[in-house]
């Protein structure tokens, strides 16, 4: 009665020699020992493996794991007009880093960013592959703005660019599109900017299911506004955002949700029955049949074996919730 989805990124290497193939390929590429084609081949093998892991676990809506992404910001920004990619900056509280985009002129969409990657992933997955894009508020918040001077017009142009990308993804066949706005957990005051941007993006989603996902914290202050977001699903981090759970369990949600209840930042395994019980407390308050259960954010911050375990826990919890219901 509740389906399962992942949020986006996934560990690209594991402990075994086979699972380190991409690390070796990148090292050889950096030394000039292999070319771009061979590197791409190595990447694609990992994408296939990541999709296989999700399909075998029985996840209903999967993702390509963002295996080819350097990070969540530069992978999207680097293909937009007027963007340069600069040095490393710490990414939220994750102890990982992203290459910071610098914007020196009006941002524009000039070419597809994720379409080929999405097509390849979908061709290698039984389950529908969700196309995941970093949202305009988060992209603008983590970039250096040398052109706009104000966040408003910057977010607006980014949203227009992302809308074109979403149109291209939908034309290619994507039925699930997700916009990630982790910045909302840190800067809730920017919610109206984020939602205006999302409105632009939503205009090109066609028949696809559009999810707005916030993670790395709680969103109680803006929960009401998020309920009115122009998206079909609202994704919530209910682990780091435990406060959001507190509000949700009291007031419910008009909008169907992606319930990020599986801790994607900690190795400790959840008991699937406990998670199932927690989900079922929302019965009558949330349209569970239209909602999904998910990790609290992408699984990349865990070692590969632990990420696999979390996938199993996720599916087991959803099954228990279905049986108990």
């Amino acid at each position, binding site marked *: 009665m509740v389906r399962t989805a992942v949020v986006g990124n996934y560990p690209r*290497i594991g402990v075994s020699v086979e699972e380190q193939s991409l690390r070796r390929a990148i090292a050889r590429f*950096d030394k000039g020992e292999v070319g771009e084609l061979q590197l791409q081949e190595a990447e694609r093998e990992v994408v296939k493996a990541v999709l296989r892991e999700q399909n075998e676990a029985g996840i209903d809506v999967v993702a390509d794991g963002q295996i080819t992404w350097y990070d969540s910001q530069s992978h999207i920004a680097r293909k937009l007009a007027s963007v340069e990619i600069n040095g490393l900056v*710490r990414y939220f509280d994750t*102890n990982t880093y992203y290459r910071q985009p610098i914007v020196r002129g009006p941002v524009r969409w000039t070419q597809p960013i994720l379409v080929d990657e999405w097509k390849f992933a979908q061709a290698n997955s039984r389950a529908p592959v969700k196309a995941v894009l970093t949202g305009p508020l988060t992209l603008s918040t983590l970039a250096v703005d040398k052109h706009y001077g104000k966040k408003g017009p910057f977010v607006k142009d980014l949203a227009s660019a992302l809308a074109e990308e979403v149109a291209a993804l939908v034309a290619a066949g994507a039925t699930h599109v997700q916009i990630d706005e982790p910045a909302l957990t840190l800067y809730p005051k920017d919610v109206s900017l984020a939602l205006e941007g999302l409105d632009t993006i939503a205009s090109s989603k066609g028949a696809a299911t559009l999810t707005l996902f916030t993670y790395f914290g709680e969103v109680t202050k803006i929960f009401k506004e998020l309920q009115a977001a122009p998206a079909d699903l609202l994704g919530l981090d209910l682990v780091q955002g435990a406060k959001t759970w507190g509000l949700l369990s009291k007031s419910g949600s008009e909008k169907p949700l992606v319930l990020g209840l599986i801790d994607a930042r*900690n*190795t400790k395994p959840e008991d699937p029955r406990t998670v199932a019980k927690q989900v079922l407390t929302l019965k009558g308050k949330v349209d569970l049949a239209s909602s999904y259960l998910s990790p609290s954010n992408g699984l990349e911050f865990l070692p590969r074996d632990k990420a696999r375990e979390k996938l199993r826990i996720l599916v087991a919890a959803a099954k228990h919730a279905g049986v108990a219901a």
Partner: protein
Amino acid sequence: MSALLTTSVGSFPKPEYLIRARAKAAKGDLSAKELHALEEKATAEWIRFQEEIGIDIPVDGEQYRGDMATYFAENIEGTVISGLVRSYGNRYYKKPIITDELRLRGPISVDWFRFAQKLTKKPVKGMITGPYTMMDWSFDEYYGSREEACLAFARLLHQEAVALRDAGAKIIQVDEPALSTRFDELPLLVKAVGIVTQGLDTKTILHTCYGNYNEIFEYFNKLPVDQLDLEMSNSGLDLLDRFKREPLKKEIAFGVIDVHSHVVEPVDLIRERIEKALTIFRPDQLYIDPDCGLKTRTVEEAQAKLRNMVTAARAVREAHHLTSGKG
């Protein structure tokens, strides 16, 4: 009066032979004893280099450490080490997992401190990875609360600090690179570092880097240490104005070398940075060092950067008729 004393943050690059040896040891092709001997050799080389160029407060260079959190966790009971997680690009590291109550097996870094201190008459820094960073960079399967895990680390690391002092350390540095990750947890960090440094009669330092200093500024004077060690050149020295308005009541180790750049800063540029710092801080309050550990640079780059740093500090001292206070 001592002025503009030069020092380093902690890590130095490992020489090629040590990198190869570590890879061999990881595969089981080199014994722990053989690896240890090479780590000692590299440490001795770095101490000699620091003596040669005249650094006032040397460090052991952390030739024996992989990741700074994992190294401490490996020596603490109640943790296991995870599989690989990505830091950025093609760089991965192993994270500690707390699986049980944390307990100290024995001193962690004291033997290395002793080894390094024997090689020089200058005071070598004792180096501790701070409790907040240990907590933030570990998975927790036991405590279930960031505060509890953090304070548990703090109590153990206090024992480590006491052991370093008893071994003769005159200066103890607590590294907290995770300091600025969650602003709402700064009171926890202050409390935890306070536990580590409680009752120590040594000089204490807190090092942090690559954070949003403006958000944490009001905490600087509350940190329970004698000296703050801050990355200043990477952030474009823009904090200086704020220090002018809101004076620091502690000593400051002022980062004048960008550790993420291959470019070796010319002496004149470093002099300029020190001169700027001198417009805000008293000479006896001001220490000169790189922004952060130099381990990601090559040995040659790191040495060239340090050499220029010491030359620049010396030139500024001379220009202002200051001495290092070392006779």
